[in-house]
């Protein structure tokens, strides 16, 4: 079988790439996608380690992470839509003020 370290290294690569994408990109929607990638990298690490520990609890945690990510995506995208309605832009550098 495949050693668990392979999965951990893949999860590390994906997490770091998500972090880089978050810093490099300039539109809010893609930055939000980068956050989703980081969440998924964490999920992969959870499942790989749950398999190594021969326990199912790690999978339950991944289940909860997916649920919370869905809720977070709904609220986050609503906020992005609201920003676009008020400022007509979704570039991160154009959004400087806390109070519109």
């Amino acid at each position: 079988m495949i050693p668990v370290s392979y999965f951990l290294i893949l999860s590390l690569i994906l997490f770091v790439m998500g972090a880089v994408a978050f810093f490099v990109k300039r539109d809010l929607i893609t930055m939000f996608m980068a956050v989703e990638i980081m969440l998924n990298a964490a999920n992969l690490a959870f499942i790989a380690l749950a398999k190594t520990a021969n326990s199912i609890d790690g999978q339950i945690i991944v289940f909860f992470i997916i649920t919370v990510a869905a809720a977070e995506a709904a609220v986050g995208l609503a906020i992005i839509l609201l920003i676009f309605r008020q400022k007509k832009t979704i570039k991160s550098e154009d959004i400087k003020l806390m109070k519109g």
Partner: protein
Amino acid sequence: MAYFLFFLLAILSVGSVLGMIISKNQAYNALYLILAFACLGGLFGILGAPFLAVIQIIIYAGAIMVLFIFVIMMVNIREGIPAEKKKWTLYVALGLAAVLVLELVLSLKGAFSLPGAAVAEKASPTELGRLLFTKYLYPFEITSILIIAALVGAIVLVKRKEKE
């Protein structure tokens, strides 16, 4: 066979995330992300978590990405947003990434030497459901409250104010 599948899915997922970083069109970014999530679902399947693989594809690649695509449609930026002109942000990002890699490698050092994954003992959905409704019953109920709160919050945020 398992190795072949693992490397195929790993290269596809890393490649599609790389494509997301390079491409500047939001719609393409969403499609790259769907590919990455589907590959991760396959990896979950290799790791003996068939239920989570299905959940990953239905909820992530299905529901969440459809939500993203709807918002991209509504926001409707005609020309893509070009990459950062200032070079220093890229360098800062790469420097921070190097630090992050170092930190993660140091903290995962113990886990890398763990013995190879045992023979695939599939976690059946039955087992998962039983655990969810016994040991993790309270977190489960709290999650349902969280989802209702998020639903109401999203609707209230986006609803247009009626003119008095």
